[in-house]
């Protein structure tokens, strides 16, 4: 789609002049607007904070400071304490570690499953493809949350890894669908055909030829899956099917919101919520930045 600047070529077509003028403008402007940069800095700060939780925390995140119940933010407890005297400030950083790593782990699982399934389905013949799509349709006809409820109740005791696995296993359908349609668009291009004729294996075709071609169009979905996994974790924690009590995550902190409301301790509710929200939004705007690059065509309106 990039504009061709080579003087040997001449651009022809209806009103082509109108296009480069309007198209050229927003590109640098959007870059300079710096939205992704701001989001990136924020996200980096949060990630670093979580990585160096040990240095940042000034209390034991799993300690109960029973002399300091429901204390508003002050110089010792920066973000206050909850009804059992736990230090919100220290918990935020340690909890972030868990939440972020669940998000990343789920993302890896979603990506691996989604791409593999999508590629197989996209490359296979019509019959196999139809069966694979049917299976997915079936899985898709049950709400994700219900699937997760089933999985979590079967797993019983969850830890961060099994939770991430459960979220990953139930979350890849949309990606697979997207990958499949991308693959079907490029499966008949010469280089793929050529590779298949030469007897190149499926794995190699997938990694060498397919993925590089559609990676840009699915990157947004992959990045977005981090945020959706993080928020799924918090939902499961709230419903009581999440992590065990001794593992702190933003989700488990938020699930205490219910009781904090009645005790008028706003900091217990608002602070983890703000952290979660900022992180999710930062991740999304970074993902969006990847997507925006694709739609440069100006509106006809």
């Amino acid at each position, binding site marked *: 789609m990039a504009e061709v600047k080579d003087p040997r070529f001449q651009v022809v077509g209806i009103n082509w002049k109108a296009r480069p003028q309007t198209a050229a403008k927003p590109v640098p402007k959007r870059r300079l607007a710096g939205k992704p940069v701001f989001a990136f800095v924020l996200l980096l700060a949060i990630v670093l904070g979580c990585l160096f939780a040990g240095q940042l925390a000034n209390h034991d995140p799993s300690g109960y400071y029973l002399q300091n119940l429901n204390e508003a933010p002050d110089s010792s407890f920066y973000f206050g304490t909850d009804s059992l005297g736990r230090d919100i400030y220290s918990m935020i950083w340690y909890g972030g570690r868990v939440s972020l790593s669940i998000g990343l782990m789920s993302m890896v699982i979603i990506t691996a499953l989604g791409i593999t399934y999508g590629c197989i389905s996209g490359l296979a013949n019509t019959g196999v493809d139809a069966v694979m*799509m049917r299976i997915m349709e079936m899985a898709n006809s049950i709400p994700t949350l219900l699937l997760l409820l089933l999985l979590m109740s079967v797993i019983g005791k969850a830890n961060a890894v099994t939770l991430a696995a459960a979220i990953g296993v139930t979350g890849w359908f949309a990606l697979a669908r997207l990958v499949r349609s991308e693959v079907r668009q490029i499966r008949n291009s010469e280089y793929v055909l050529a590779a298949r004729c030469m007897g190149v294996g499926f794995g190699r075709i997938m990694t060498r030829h397919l993925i590089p071609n559609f990676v840009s169009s699915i990157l947004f979905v992959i990045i977005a899956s981090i945020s959706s996994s993080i928020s799924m974790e918090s939902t499961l924690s709230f419903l009581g099917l999440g992590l065990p009590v001794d593992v702190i995550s933003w989700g488990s902190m938020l699930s205490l919101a219910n009781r904090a409301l009645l005790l008028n301790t706003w900091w217990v509710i608002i602070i983890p919520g703000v952290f979660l929200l900022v992180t999710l939004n930062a991740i999304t705007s970074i993902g969006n930045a990847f997507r925006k690059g694709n739609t440069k065509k100006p509106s006809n309106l």
Partner: protein
Amino acid sequence: MLILSVVVFYFARWAPGDPLQSFYGDAVESMSSEELAAARSRLGLDAPIHVQYVRWLQGALHGEFGLSLKYKMPAMRVVSPLVGNTLLLGTTAYLLVFLLATFLAVACALHEDTWLDRLICKIGTAVYYLPPFWLGVVLVLVFSIQLKWLPSSGAYDVGKAGDVFNRLRHMILPLTVMILSHLWYYGYMIRNKLLDELRQDYVLLAKEKGLTKRQIVWKHCLRNVAPAIVNIMAISIPHVLSGTYIAESVFNYPGIGALSVASAKYHDYNLLMILVLITGALVILSSILAQTVSEIIDPRIKETGVSAWQR
């Protein structure tokens, strides 16, 4: 659906947690092994899984779905009064989500890349990522506890099962949570579809004809995007339905969503089975409905025989 039931059934029986125990409660501990065996055979839990499944299926065809282990009555009797509540909540939320999403999308498309578009996009994304349960709790605090405008729980007040307004009042908060947590996901999708549509050549023609922006978007673009929206609607049913689980749990709204959560936690698999099946049936039914609608809107789909998954 048959396959679904097999999978869930086997799944359920592997799961940890002795169904006998959820049935008889803590008393199981004090039963002797003979008593346990007797109770097991009375509940038909001693047969191999596939026999149990066939038995269950035979019952299911006669409308018998087994006893709920937690509520100690036929699972169907536990579920059936609640389906209506959830259908009401789910359908209203579902329709409102797409109605509002379309309006927002049009507003964005009309003002692409202006402050309005950006503002809606920003707020939309931010709201979309609010954890729905958290939003619910905050809404309860503001509207039920502080302002006392709206009830915090239940489907209707005492003795007002038939009162439409009363039901609506109880639905406002759960609806708000469900709508806000799905709105922008679809709003953004529709917005992008509309923006793609605005880049079609016929828009230029329409503009040349002297139509206003509004006319073009509402009359032409939206009509062309409509099949796509209906298609999105068709595949989004389970997604929106997911919202009922959280909304019903937070607001203590008696419905099959909250019941699913509770029975999953209780290992009440007879109940969970029926809930999965009902949900599956609802989704299949409404998908067929959506497909029929999209065929009416866009006859091209029927002619080429392209169904949703083959696009």
